[in-house]
């Protein structure tokens, strides 16, 4: 045999063993080739695989191993040298690659392992996050429920609805079996079942408030788990075997007074209501924390909502009360106004009724004065006139008490004879005094000025009143009146501490003391004497005639007197040594010093315009239209007496024919059938206002219709027939002054 290059295998082992080796190698090679393929395939499929290089390496390693094993297949039989070389190369390569891989794996494997660790870690984390997410979600659920509940609760201001809604919503949200609200009773000693969820009409159960379980709940602001057997929780017969867990929470009942402006309400309020919530029995559910929190929040919200409702209720009630009061006040005001109007109407009417006869007396007396009288008669008439004037003024003043009370009364200043004023008053009083057998004496100080400036009438009234009272309350004895100028030291009286008279050059203070020997006054009654409504119980009251009314009227006059005295910057007071010892009325008024001696006579109380009236109207051209001959003659005589130049006409035509601008006044008897028409024609004929004569209606009718008619046709005045001399005088002077009869 030649030496061939073929490498002879070793002694062939068993054929079977070789066969098996052969097959195994084949499969190994196959596997080794397919693994990388699989790797590549799956890696390609996966998106993330950071170790591609490793893969390549590994792949190469495996491929080469596979190649080695494959080539090994050829080495089982006789194989050529190429095969051997290939084999060797493959083996070398494989060796290199495997070593490289092995070396590489040292790095790689820990990495891979750490990847795993991280994966685990991340998984844990994810689980944790999930848990937390779950928690947050439940919390948010809770929050949503609370908001929704709150919204429901707050959407109404009706207490009942609030509470009912709370229970319903809570029941729904937490799937409760029963939910109840216990309210404290009025006495505060018990809790009464006010609302429940399931039962329609809660039985008016009560439990005493001082149970330990209740105290426990009330002492904390958290929801507290309580035993289902406690009295507050035993609301319904057990539905199942195991009652569900029960939780109770306090609901503070806030009052308005709990709210400070910038402060959260103090929960020092003692009043709480109790809310009890029961989970369904046999459910094995438990109260979760978040559920408890929900309950607490709801309880707070309910408290606030309730307090709002309470505030609203109160304010509604207050408003209703105010409205009622308003209505009542309005009514009262209207009644008062009606009363005042009635009073004013009455006063006005009485005024008129009382003034009319007064005026008649004054007018007639003044007329009488103008006739020829004997001296005694003249004196009598003068006295009548003066008394009537005083009385008229008194009526004016007394009936104008409202004006008086407004303080709008003003003094009528003028210079007058002080001495004669006193004497006149005495003369007026003397007759009455002598009937009662009282002696009246007057003493005027020598330094009392004879003339003074002031309101003579009011001074006389005051004096008359005071002296009159002295006479009235004295049964016997004497009345002495002294008047003098008050000196500085006597100006301040200890009894009148607020009276600070300040004398000056132009003024002096007149001090008048009226002493009587009557029943005197109890010192305790001093303040009452000058007050309006006090009733003095002194003897004076009981013994004077017409005691009750008299004293009331007396008080009234006192008010007038006080007002007058005050108006004159003075003061009035009484002194008495006691009951039965008489009393002295003292008043001081401020009067002006007057230099001149001109005396202004007491003007008559009637027609003030009489003072300004002219006594004659020389040259005044007047036309008189009247169809009654006698009336015509009388009116003409009247006007002639007053100095007018009179033309008389008896018909409308004649009047219109003779009327001209020269005539100043035309008197028209409107009872004539064409009286008004004539007036109109006169106005038409002589259109220029300032040149045409004034037209005055003469009528026996003074009713409103006549007056209106006259006004409508443009007449300047209405005069009632028959006209007196004085009236005509007044009419003419008014016409001339104002061009209208006021």
């Amino acid at each position, binding site marked *: 045999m030649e030496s061939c290059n073929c490498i002879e295998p070793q002694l062939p082992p068993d054929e079977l063993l070789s066969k098996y080796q052969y097959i195994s190698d084949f499969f190994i090679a196959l596997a080794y080739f397919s693994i990388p393929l699989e790797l590549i395939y799956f890696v390609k499929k996966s998106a993330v695989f950071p170790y591609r290089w490793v893969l390549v390496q590994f792949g190469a390693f495996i491929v080469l191993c596979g190649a080695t094993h494959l080539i090994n297949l050829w080495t089982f039989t006789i194989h050529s040298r190429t095969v051997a070389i290939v084999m060797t190369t493959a083996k070398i390569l494989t060796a290199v690659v495997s070593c490289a891989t092995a070396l590489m794996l040292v790095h790689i494997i820990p990495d891979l392992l750490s990847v795993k660790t991280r994966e685990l870690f991340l998984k844990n984390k994810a689980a944790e996050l999930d848990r937390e997410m779950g928690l947050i979600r439940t919390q948010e659920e809770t929050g949503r429920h609370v908001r929704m509940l709150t919204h429901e609760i707050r959407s109404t201001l009706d207490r009942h609805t609030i509470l009912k809604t709370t229970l319903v919503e809570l029941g729904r949200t937490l799937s409760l079996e029963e939910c109840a609200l216990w309210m404290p009773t009025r006495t505060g000693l018990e809790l009464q079942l006010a609302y429940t969820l399931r039962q329609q009409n809660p039985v008016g159960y009560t439990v005493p408030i001082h149970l330990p379980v209740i105290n426990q709940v009330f002492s904390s602001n958290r929801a507290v788990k309580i035993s289902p057997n406690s009295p507050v929780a035993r609301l319904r017969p057990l539905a199942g075997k195991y009652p569900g867990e029960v939780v109770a929470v306090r609901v503070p009942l806030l009052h308005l007074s709990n709210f400070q402006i910038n402060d959260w309400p103090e929960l020092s309020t003692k009043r709480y209501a109790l809310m009890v919530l029961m989970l369904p029995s046999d459910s094995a559910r438990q109260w979760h924390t978040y559920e408890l929190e929900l309950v607490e929040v709801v309880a707070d919200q309910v408290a606030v909502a309730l307090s709002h409702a309470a505030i609203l209720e109160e304010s509604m009630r207050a408003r209703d009360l105010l409205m009622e009061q308003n209505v009542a006040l309005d009514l009262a005001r209207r009644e008062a106004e009606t009363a005042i109007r009635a009073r004013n109407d009455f006063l006005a009417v009485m005024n008129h009724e009382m003034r009319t006869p007064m005026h008649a007396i004054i007018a*007639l007396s003044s*007329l009488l004065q103008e*006739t*020829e*009288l*004997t*001296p*005694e008669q003249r*004196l009598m008439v003068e*006295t009548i006139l003066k008394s009537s004037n005083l009385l008229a003024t008194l009526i004016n003043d007394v009936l104008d008490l409202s004006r008086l009370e407004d303080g709008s009364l003003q003094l009528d200043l003028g210079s007058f004879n002080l001495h004669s004023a006193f*004497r006149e008053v*005495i*003369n007026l009083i003397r*007759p009455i005094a*002598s*009937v*009662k*057998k009282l002696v009246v004496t007057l003493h005027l100080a020598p330094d009392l000025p004879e003339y003074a400036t002031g309101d003579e009438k009011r001074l006389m009234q005051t004096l008359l009143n005071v002296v009159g009272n002295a006479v009235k309350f004295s049964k016997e004895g004497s009345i002495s009146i002294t008047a003098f100028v008050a000196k500085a030291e006597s100006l301040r009286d200890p009894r009148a501490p607020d009276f600070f008279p300040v004398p000056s050059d132009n003024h002096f203070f007149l001090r008048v003391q009226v002493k009587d020997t009557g029943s005197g006054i109890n010192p305790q009654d001093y303040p009452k004497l000058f007050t309006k409504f006090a009733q003095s119980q002194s003897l004076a009251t009981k013994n004077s005639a017409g005691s009750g009314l008299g004293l009331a009227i007396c008080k009234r006059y006192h008010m007038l007197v006080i007002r007058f005295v005050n108006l004159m910057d003075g003061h009035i007071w009484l002194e008495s040594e006691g009951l039965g010892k008489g009393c002295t009325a003292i008043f001081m008024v401020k009067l002006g010093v007057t230099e001149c001696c001109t005396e202004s006579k007491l003007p008559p109380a009637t027609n003030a315009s009489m003072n300004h009236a002219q006594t004659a109207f020389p040259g005044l051209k007047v036309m008189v239209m009247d*169809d*009654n*001959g*006698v*009336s015509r*003659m*009388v*009116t003409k*005589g*009247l006007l*002639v*007496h007053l100095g007018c130049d009179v033309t008389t006409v008896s018909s409308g035509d004649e009047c219109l024919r003779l009327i001209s601008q020269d005539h100043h006044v035309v008197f028209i008897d409107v*009872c004539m059938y064409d009286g008004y028409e004539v007036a109109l024609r006169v106005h038409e004929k002589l259109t220029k206002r300032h040149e045409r004569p004034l037209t005055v209606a003469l009528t*026996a009718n003074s009713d409103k219709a006549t007056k209106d008619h006259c006004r409508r046709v443009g007449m300047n005045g209405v005069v009632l*027939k*028959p*006209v*007196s*001399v004085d009236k005509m005088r007044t009419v003419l002077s008014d016409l001339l002054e104002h061009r209208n009869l006021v």
Partner: protein
Amino acid sequence: MPLHHYRPPPNHGGITSTQQQQVTHQPPAMDVLSQSRRQLADYTNSLHRDGFLDDQFSQLQQLQDESSPDFVMEVVSLFFEDCQKLVTNMARALSELQAVDFKQVDSSVHQLKGSSSSVGAARIKNLCVAFKTCCDSQNRDGCMRCLQEVNRECVLLKNKLQTLFRLEQQIISAGGSIPM
């Protein structure tokens, strides 16, 4: 001036009627005048009191002065003339056998009322008011009665006033003057 005349007697209060009349001493020749005056005053007062006259008459008396010394008499005479005329008219109208013209009667009454009120004849004026009512109710008999009364009053007043004027004349002839 204080009324010194009224001296109360000692231990006695009050003013008795005897003390009211203080006669002023006048020369004797004036006694007649003052007496006449007093008579006139009394008479006038009585007329006023009885309602024959009212203050309008006094007004008329006021109007009498030197320029028209007989004013009152003139007015009064005119009044009575008027009165007579009106009464006659009314009598004629009321005695119509057929329908009475109440309108005319009414206007006459109105005239009479106006005249009497101008003169101050109070009673007549009041009668006219009643008369007018009868006229308005067209009561012939009532009107007749009123007319008779008016007539009677007119006559009465005429007499009274004549007496008054006589008294005035007395005063004038005694040297006094009216108005007093």
